[in-house]
């Protein structure tokens, strides 16, 4: 469980557009790494390269190395499907599968990977829902459609679905931006729990959230619209928020721009 990720000289392109330039960073196992920065700085793009999700966009490509415990996930012969089984993802908008019940949503990954054993699926469903702090709320409506839950519950359902396939790393792309403060709190508590087992990378627009949940924070910025985004600095969250090395980071955090 819980693997380390190293990015070495990573450049990301969408066709001819150079989206992100020269990123070097290390994601530490069993900790939360937050990416912050103004819109368009490429933090979500970097996140999506970590499980080869950006490949789904036509023309997107990556240069440099992204190492998962030392193995380059972009090596020729590495299967994107296998990478994604190891590195799960939770998206900005809750997106349960509309045709499936709550239970089927949670075990969708396992089921579609070919697990048939109903007893095991039920166990995984319960464990994952407990892990996502949702079990108590939905245990009486496991057979109801997943789309019938509230937004915050749907997002926790998606987290349960992501951890049901037992990934080593969990990527979260602004997981709380569509949620109310109470649901946000529930998810933040959950992140604190999950980091005991998983390596977590979270992109957030909310700096207080980054300060609350993360152990290290990376600040991304871009010089101007149309220019590639880059990593300004990455350090312990406490240091970034109290005494950052770069002036740009301090300006951003103190609200002077962005």
């Amino acid at each position, binding site marked *: 469980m819980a693997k380390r990720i190293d990015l070495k000289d990573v450049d990301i392109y969408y066709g001819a557009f150079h989206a992100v330039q020269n990123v070097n960073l290390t994601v530490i196992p069993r900790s939360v790494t937050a990416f912050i920065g103004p819109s368009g700085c490429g933090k979500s793009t970097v996140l999506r390269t970590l*499980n080869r999700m950006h490949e789904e966009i036509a023309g997107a490509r990556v240069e440099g190395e992204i190492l998962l415990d030392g193995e380059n996930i972009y090596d020729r012969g590495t299967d994107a*499907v*296998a990478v994604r089984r190891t590195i799960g*993802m939770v998206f900005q908008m809750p997106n349960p*599968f*509309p045709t499936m019940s709550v239970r089927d949503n949670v075990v969708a990954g396992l089921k579609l*990977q070919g697990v048939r054993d109903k007893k095991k699926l039920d166990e995984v469903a319960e464990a994952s829902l407990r892990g996502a702090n949702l079990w108590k709320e939905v245990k009486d409506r496991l057979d109801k*459609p997943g789309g019938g839950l509230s937004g915050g519950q749907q997002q926790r359902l998606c987290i349960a*679905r*992501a951890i049901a396939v037992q990934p080593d790393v969990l990527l979260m792309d602004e997981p709380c931006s569509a949620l109310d403060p109470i649901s946000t709190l529930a998810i933040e508590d959950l992140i604190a729990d999950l980091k005991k087992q998983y390596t977590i990378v979270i992109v957030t627009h909310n700096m207080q959230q980054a300060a609350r949940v993360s152990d290290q924070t990376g600040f991304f910025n871009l010089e101007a619209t149309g220019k590639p985004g880059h990593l300004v600095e990455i350090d312990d969250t406490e240091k970034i928020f109290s005494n950052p090395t770069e002036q740009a980071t301090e300006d951003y955090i103190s609200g002077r721009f962005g």
Partner: protein
Amino acid sequence: MTTATGTDLDRPASEPPTRQIALGRRIKDHVATVLVSLAFLIAVVPLVWVLVTVIARGLPAILSADWWGYSLSGVLPEEYEGGVYHAIYGTLIQAFIATVIAVPVGILAAIYLVEYGRGPLARAVSFMVDILAGVPSIVAALFVFAAFISILGAPQSAFMVSLALVLLMLPVVIRNTEEMLRLVPDRLRESAYALGIPKWKTILRIVLPTALSGTVTGVMLAIARIMGETAPVLVLVGYARAINYDPFEGNMASLPLLMYSELSNPEAAGQYRIWGAALTLIIIIMIFQVGASLISRFSAIPK
């Protein structure tokens, strides 16, 4: 608008502009209302006229005892006996064979266009589908005649009709399925990929079920549409007054073909059968259309 207790200060300085609609605008409003209502009436009149005529003239035929269960085998032109069982069977079996061929091909083509198609091949396929959608049914029928009957030497049969119907049905099924697949949000696909589910399984188990209701509805409407096609049956199969269960051999009746052949019957019974067959065809097509809307209502994704 002064009230008993109002002073000059309470009164608006000028008349509120919302108080009355200017005369010019009122006239325009009335003219537009009248024109739109008139256009609606003009559109509805022929529809109601056709329906009323067909029902009034066809009703005696479809209410007769033999209509739904017997063919016209051995019935003389001037006799009112017999029914259109053979033609109903022909219409249904020809549409059924066309559906069995066109639906899988059409759905797979739509999946290709939406999920895989990038670049010149997809554009070419999409362009061809547009062309095919514009092909008149007589051209589709003549193509099948030329390709299969003239060149390959196949005999005229109901199956040839089905092949022509496939050509007419394919673009409808492809375009509709394409629309339905495009309605499935990309974030569902992405979250499936993020679970480590391979693309083909994502399509089969996530995307298709989400689009199923609309796809099935579209297929039903496509079936309803091809059942009334007349050109293929005129060109590709001979008329038979008796039941022929074999779609691969011999002449076979269908409702449009029966109507056409009764046109040359000078007796009053011919008219009687034409109107009866017309009403029967409308009823069968209606059943498919109502079925389509029922399916879309009951298989819609619960909220």
